[in-house]
């Protein structure tokens, strides 16, 4: 007789890779349903839940692709990426990369970046609540602290650089936005997707802000950024960029750390 662990292993395999198991080994056949059909009912239900989760996180991709294509795409994604978290809000992390590698989508090269924007939006929506940084707090720092000063981005913040106008595509495909076409040739840009209080934000960044915030996000110390950035990009002035980003809320904290540079 099959033990619990064995039954569950086979059942789970039967949900994600139905051809790999013989459902009759552990499921009773009934007058109206074979064992395989019974398992199939659960598989359909699971696919329904996961597709629903993806459509809630990626509504713009859904609108761009249409329901039929989106459902087929989801089905392929589910096959390659079984859920591994008990919380459905975690499902869909690799959807953008999957779209990038999905041959039928090569005509739509901007879609993976649209999906990235939607994933970052989803994460920002549920991220930790934080206060703004008051610039006066920095006046408490002593001269000796400066080499160890690191800034930090909001916990909700994600940087996204794209060669496509993803923000415009996203904005044109909101439920209440009138349908109009977006000129793909206008090129892309750099975005910060984050939450300010309960306000969801997509901010377009200047090239200097992008370089500066990318360094901060990578954990580089302020003194190192001040030395390195102007050498590589003479137009960048971190001493000016820092208060500007604090005022915008793009930077909302700092810490002292001698280990990372």
């Amino acid at each position: 007789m099959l033990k619990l662990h064995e039954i569950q292993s086979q059942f789970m395999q039967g949900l994600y890779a139905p051809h790999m198991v013989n459902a009759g080994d552990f499921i009773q056949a009934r007058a109206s349903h074979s064992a395989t059909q019974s398992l199939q009912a659960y598989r359909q239900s699971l696919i329904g839940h996961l597709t629903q989760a993806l459509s809630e996180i990626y509504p713009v991709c859904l609108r761009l692709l249409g329901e039929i294509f989106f459902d087929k795409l989801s089905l392929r994604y589910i096959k390659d990426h079984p859920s591994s978290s008990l919380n459905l809000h975690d499902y869909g992390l690799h959807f953008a990369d999957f779209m990038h590698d999905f041959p039928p989508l090569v005509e739509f090269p901007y879609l993976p970046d649209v999906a990235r924007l939607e994933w970052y939006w989803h994460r920002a929506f549920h991220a930790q609540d934080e206060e703004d940084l008051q610039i006066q707090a920095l006046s408490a720092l002593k001269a000796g602290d400066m080499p160890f000063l690191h800034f930090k981005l909001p916990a909700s913040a994600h940087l996204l650089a794209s060669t496509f106008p993803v923000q415009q595509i996203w904005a044109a495909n909101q439920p209440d936005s009138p349908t109009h076409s977006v000129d793909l040739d206008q090129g892309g840009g750099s975005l910060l997707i984050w939450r300010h209080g309960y306000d969801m934000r997509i901010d377009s960044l200047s090239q200097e802000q992008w370089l500066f915030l990318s360094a901060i996000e990578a954990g580089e110390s302020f003194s190192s950024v001040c030395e390195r950035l102007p050498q590589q990009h003479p137009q960048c002035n971190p001493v000016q960029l820092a208060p500007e980003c604090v005022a915008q809320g793009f930077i909302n904290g700092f810490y002292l750390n001698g280990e990372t540079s």
Partner: protein
Amino acid sequence: MSDHSIQGVGLGLRSQHYAHILEHQPDVPWFEALADNYLGDGGLPLYHLEQIRKDYPLTFHAVGMSLGSSDPLDVDYLRKLKALTQRFESAWLSDHLSWSRSNGQVANDLLPMPYTTEAAQHVSDRIQQAQEVLGQRLVIENVSSYLSYSMDAMTEWAFLMEVVERADCLILLDINNIYVSAMNHGFEPLPYLEAIPVERVVEMHLAGYEDTGDLLFDTHGQAVHPPVWALYRAALQRFGKRPTLIEWDTDIPAFEVLQHEAQIAERHQQEVHHAQAA
């Protein structure tokens, strides 16, 4: 755990109704929130729940404990749930007599248990472990099922009884799920009710199933069906007035539709109560 703040017919809290609830403060005795929607670190869902909690008592309903799995318990998930129940001072926390994870893969669904002694022992041990981490007694709900296992050795209600007695936990009796499983598996629903010990039932659920022709599905997307109302009356006769919840999860209608369902449930409660008193 009979928390007296939870009485009458409550409603399942859904984000579509936040604005309506906060604006109109409808007369609802309590809300049941889906715990898994509030496990993020912050943001609007938690803010809205906080606002609603100021005016209403709350219970939490979870779907992710996977109590019946042979995989290890997700202690991190349980700790998050514990923090949530403490922060919002929920009257109780429920999850299902089911499993969702195996070998690290997850089916975000409520999969049925095989009804064996081995499985009953396993899941009751796990409920006890979960209760220790959570620091509270759990309320366990019966699920709908669409298949039976070859190795089933007892009825669903005998299994439920063995689990709750061993784990010494409480029961959330989903009347719709009993009816759905009874129809799908061809058993009589009344002996199921008769087998459940009255004192363990702290809550009942009502919802609408979907009839696909050869199976009933627990989709929570319709009004409660007449045979489920009839079974609810039988349950009221056996268990007395118990906190009862209207669940609606797909094709979520206007708030008034949920309130209308709650009024029907209240009417059944009063009628059964008066018939018994007479």
